[in-house]
């Protein structure tokens, strides 16, 4: 039996060599550069469950063969191979509170191991327990194995000795072993005591000085009080000293919690810093309960929210419009799966439904009226407000990705009442089924107008929509493998997925539909309006009822639409034929990965995601929720990348929202929410919300980042040039140095937009700490030493008496750096 290397996620190096990147020799979008995917196990979906066993899980990987089987901790777990990328298995019983290897043995006896992938729940921390996610995290980090008898004892107070173990393992890693204790540090800690090594090491590292100072009756040694509980006030100090380093001193307290006096409570500054980081929101009612003991369950939450902030921040770069401290703590408190479940059910952000107005602007419509009814202002401002303030971040991010793919441009569909129903379709279907989205968007009047399906008749069928729904919304121009690489013919040339003859069939399907006129609602009751809200209307007299054969010559089983069908029957047949085309999964997977995670995913990653499009695990095709989860949970999204071509340039809108969200964007005067009037700034960076220049969106899918000789895909670089690169820096300059966007009613900015840098100012006394804070929040802790050193030096060049100036200096330099602009 061949033993595979036991790395959790093995990926072939995809560093391109000069030979493979040769311009004009190898097609850069073909599979030639990558080769086929290889057998591997990538991850276990929902990787924990009751110790008694019986949990159904999905094991996701590549090149699973029928007959492959699974063992968990050496125990046979069966396994049903649903596809080359998915095995379902029922977890066996395993000792409570332990981790077990999950091993897939392929039908050819090749073996892939996911080390310690399965967590068997503690008996006293079930899946429903609010501490489950953080406790599981502690076990996976190697910090705890529980208390006794397969339990974690979440409600027991944590002792100071247990805390020493937890903190040092969190700081140094789960396998850390401290040097042996001497027994000469604390009067009440002897070498044979539980955790004596850990306690003395905590002392050696300067985190603790003990619970009582040296005294003659204790042999002139301090006390540690190893069996005492830890108060919430004390814990704030311990956590922050480990998190920031022992030299850290928090900014002065100002009075955040009613029961923590900023002047008399010695822990006040620490507690408030913990609150600023959103590691805690207190114990309720505006209180912190500083004297209450910390339980082991609470400790797990404190630990997760303190020590995993960078990875949660990175997750939110992909799954939201930008991380902020509250969002990071939200992810860490719930775990990825819990957070995703919350996102699924979060209230759907909406766009204001606008009353219809006539095409010809009535004389009575003044400037304010025009702004609301004849410009995209209401939609663009709402876009930014939704992105900045609403809780359904993932849905909005996906909806934005879908808009970039299934384009209607406000350049042509320029009135808000016309565009809003289209946006609504994207929002409500973002986690729904792609077939519904395709159907609804096809009959959407804005799309009908934009791509000319409106009034296309059997006499003069217009082929525009027939072409673009195939090329851009579903299958692309070339036959794809499941992993997104192009299928080539014998000469190495990509095989087309359709040609003009296919379009000529499809275009006859999309005939007979039109946008009907209706009476305008008040105050324009006497004028004619078009109905942009209802799906397009159908007139059978203009529908081509001859037979259509779809994908003839391009698929082994073309779809025949028989003669004399109604327009809707034909439409459903055509949407089904399109939706079921084997290209849709890999095409959509590739484009959504580009938008959410990286411009250069491995084919294996694309394949794993595309497979979830084809079958969500329960036999449903087109389930976008399954696709989105597969994108953000995949190891290629979750593991810090080493591949030099990984990542993507933050497109202007994300560049803007990430900065605004991280620093709690508010109105110009800081008293309320921003008015969302931000697009007039960001459009100078090359991206105007809802106004892509053409149906090819804001930037072309296949754009190569400079230099072309490197052959690395970077679609966002199509709008990153000399002109826009400086405007990106100037946008940061305006936000950071000039107070943001001023409130100016004459400029349609009733409230304006600014960011809150007070927390950075508070760190200005320690430039290194200030820069590290920015690295953790904005760059998930990946800032290089060279960049860090140079920014710290520049911050030091600002007078220490000007903390605001130092905060500005640091924030500007981090956000204009290429390290930040490329999200990895």
């Amino acid at each position, binding site marked *: 039996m061949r033993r595979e290397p036991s790395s959790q996620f093995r990926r072939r190096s995809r560093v391109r060599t000069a030979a493979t990147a040769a311009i004009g020799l190898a097609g850069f979008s073909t599979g030639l550069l990558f080769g086929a995917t290889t057998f591997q196990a990538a991850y276990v979906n929902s990787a924990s469950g009751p110790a008694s066993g019986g949990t159904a899980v999905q094991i996701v990987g590549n090149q699973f063969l029928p007959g492959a089987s699974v063992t968990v901790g050496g125990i046979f777990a069966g396994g049903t191979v649903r596809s080359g990328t998915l095995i379902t298995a029922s977890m066996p019983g395993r000792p409570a509170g332990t981790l077990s290897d999950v091993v897939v043995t392929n039908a050819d006896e090749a073996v892939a191991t996911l080390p310690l992938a399965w967590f068997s729940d503690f008996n006293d921390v079930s899946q429903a327990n609010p501490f489950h996610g953080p406790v599981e995290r502690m076990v996976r980090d190697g910090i705890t194995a529980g208390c006794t008898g397969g339990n974690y004892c979440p409600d027991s107070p944590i002792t100071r000795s247990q805390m020493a173990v937890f903190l040092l393992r969190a700081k140094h890693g789960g396998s850390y072993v401290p040097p042996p204790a001497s027994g000469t540090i604390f009067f009440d800690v002897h070498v044979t005591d539980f955790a004596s090594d850990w306690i003395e090491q905590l002392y050696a590292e300067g985190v603790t000085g003990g619970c009582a100072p040296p005294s003659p009756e204790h042999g002139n040694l301090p006390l540690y009080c190893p069996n005492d509980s830890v108060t919430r006030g004390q814990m704030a100090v311990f956590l922050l000293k480990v998190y920031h380093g022992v030299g850290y001193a928090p900014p002065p307290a100002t009075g955040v919690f009613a029961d923590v006096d900023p002047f008399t409570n010695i822990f006040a500054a620490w507690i408030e810093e913990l609150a600023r980081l959103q590691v805690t929101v207190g114990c309720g009612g505006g209180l912190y309960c500083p004297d209450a003991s910390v339980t082991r369950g609470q400790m797990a939450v404190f630990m997760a929210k303190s020590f995993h902030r960078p990875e949660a921040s990175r997750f939110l770069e992909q799954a939201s419009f930008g991380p902020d401290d509250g969002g990071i703590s939200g992810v860490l408190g719930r775990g990825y799966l819990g957070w995703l479940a919350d996102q699924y059910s979060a209230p759907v952000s909406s766009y204001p439904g606008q009353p219809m107005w006539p095409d010809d602007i009535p004389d009575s419509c003044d400037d304010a009226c025009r702004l609301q009814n004849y410009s995209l202002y209401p939609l663009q401002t709402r876009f930014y407000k939704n992105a900045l303030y609403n809780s359904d971040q993932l849905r909005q991010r996906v909806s934005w990705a879908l808009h970039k793919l299934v384009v209607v441009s406000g350049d042509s569909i320029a009135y808000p009442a016309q565009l809003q129903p289209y946006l609504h379709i994207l929002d409500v279907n973002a986690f729904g089924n792609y077939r519904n989205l395709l159907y609804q968007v096809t009959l959407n009047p804005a799309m009908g107008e934009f791509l000319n399906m409106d009034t296309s008749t059997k006499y*003069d069928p217009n082929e525009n929509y027939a072409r673009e729904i195939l090329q851009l919304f579903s299958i692309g*121009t070339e036959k794809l493998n499941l992993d997104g690489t192009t299928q080539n013919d014998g000469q190495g040339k990509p095989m087309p997925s359709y040609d003009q003859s296919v379009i000529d069939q499809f275009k006859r399907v999309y005939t007979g539909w039109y946008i009907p006129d209706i009476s305008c609602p008040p105050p324009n009751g006497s004028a004619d309006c078009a109905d942009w809200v209802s799906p397009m209307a159908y007139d059978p007299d203009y529908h081509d009822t001859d037979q259509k054969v779809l994908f003839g010559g391009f698929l082994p089983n073309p779809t025949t639409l028989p003669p004399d069908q109604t327009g809707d029957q034909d439409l459903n047949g055509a949407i089904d034929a399109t939706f079921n085309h084997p290209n849709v999964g890999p095409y959509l997977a590739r484009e959504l990965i580009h938008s959410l995670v990286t411009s250069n995913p491995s084919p294996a990653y694309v394949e794993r995601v595309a497979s979830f499009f084809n079958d969500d695990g329960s036999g449903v095709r087109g389930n976008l929720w399954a696709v989105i989860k597969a994108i953000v949970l995949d190891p290629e999204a979750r593991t810090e990348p080493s591949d030099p071509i990984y990542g993507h340039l933050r497109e202007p809108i994300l560049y803007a929202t990430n900065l605004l969200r991280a620093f709690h964007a508010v109105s110009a005067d800081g008293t309320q929410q921003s008015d969302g009037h931000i697009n007039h700034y960001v459009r100078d960076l090359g991206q105007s919300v809802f106004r892509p220049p053409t149906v090819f969106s804001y930037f072309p899918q296949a754009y190569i980042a*400079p*230099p072309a000789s490197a052959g690395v895909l970077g679609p966002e670089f199509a709008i990153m040039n000399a002109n826009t690169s400086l405007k990106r*820096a100037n946008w940061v*300059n305006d936000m950071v140095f000039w107070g943001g966007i001023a409130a100016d009613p004459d400029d349609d900015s009733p409230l304006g937009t600014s960011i809150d840098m007070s927390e950075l100012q508070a760190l200005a006394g320690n430039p290194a700490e200030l820069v590290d804070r920015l690295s953790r929040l904005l760059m998930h802790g990946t800032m290089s030493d060279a960049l860090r050193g140079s920014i710290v030096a520049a911050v030091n060049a600002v*007078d220490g008496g000007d903390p605001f100036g130092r905060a500005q200096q640091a924030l*500007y330099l981090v956000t204009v750096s290429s390290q930040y602009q490329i999200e990895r």
Partner: protein
Amino acid sequence: MAHSRRDFLRRTTCAALSAAAAQATLRRLGLMNLYATTAASDYRALVCIFLDGGNDSNNLIVPTDATHYNEYLAARPISSGIGLDASSLLQIGTPPIFNGTGRTFGFHPNLSEMQSLYTQNKLAVVCNVGPLVEPLTQDDYVNGTKPTPYSLFSHSDQIDCWQTSQASLRIPTGWGGRIADATAGCNSASSFPTITSISGSATFCVGIETTPLAIDTGALNEILVLNGFNGSSADDARKSAMDFARTIDRTAVLMAAASDVTQQAVDISAALDVDPTINTVFPDTDLGQQLLQVAKIIKLNQTSLNLSRQIFYVETGGYDTHQDQASDQGNNFLDLSQALGAFYAALVELGVQNNVAAFTHSDFGRTLEPSGDPGSVGTDHGWGNHQLVLGGSVNGGNFYGTAGQNGSIFPTLVMGGISDTSPDDRGRWIPTSAVEQYGATLANWFGVAPGDLATVFPLIGNFATTDLGFMGTAGSSC
């Protein structure tokens, strides 16, 4: 330099340049003197005008002799909504190439500046150009016996075919960029980029070595400005940290790309320190202002940039006329004609009308057959298309191209006729001249050495001639 630029180009297209080596080369070029003041004696510039969406050239140039106008009218009756009335066409008589045939032509009624420049022999029409892998007959196409461009009739793909000139496979470089690579030796006195785009980072402008400069319209000394540095010691420290940050962390390919783009902006910002005055009045339209910006860069080059070869790229949209073609294309043509008229006048003002050639390209032509309601009629995606070339060195006042199966350089305006892709088609012309030939003709004039032509246009060997004859004497390759 140790080897000629041409050798460099040849080597790098065979075994692609590593990213690191390309960076090193770019940096080396960046060391050259930005402030040399002697203008090159032999200045040549190309201006690419991209008509985004697929221009319907069947209404750009219309036959006006009775026989051929009637063919046109049969396919596009006035009642269709897009048939042009003979009396409205701007007559240009018989192009010399058609002498003795009795054929006459006219421009769309909104192209009065084009008519005027044509009659002054400053404007040429190149007929039925489009992406081709090799020459193609209707039978070849119908029977699938010869390779055809990938993804015909698709906007994005046909734009790629046009801008890369390679209809056989996808490549990331454009022929403008490769021409710049091949003539970089002409510009060794300057570090200003050979290519300036006034409309983003189009593929046309991307070479193996060449990265285009993309700028906006507006005052030249105000378009590439980094705000917020006012000379305080804190500002200086910030600027220095910002500059330093672009030199580190270059292992991640996209980070290096972002740094290089910004570095170029910072470098160029210093060179664009004045806003030259152009007295010619340009239309206050997007295209007009883009061409004004080109004129200003040319003027700046005369005083400070010191390039002897330049390529410009401008873009104007709205040509995808599936609906409402009569009004939309009419407005587009009015803008195009007035903007190009002003641009030529500005070239005369600068004394460089014989040194600059402007040329059009578009996604594709459009179906001869109208589609949609007469009230909102338009046309669908086609293939071969007529192009305009403007300049004092253009052999203007004539039509150019390659004779097709109909024996003429001009397609037969009959749906399903011999110029069509098949007897069942709707008036989509199989091109009779390839994009590669169109480009090579311009490249010859620009100064690409004959030996480099096959590197810049890899398929050029598949066609009978590398020069369609519409340009004057070939330039020096430096």
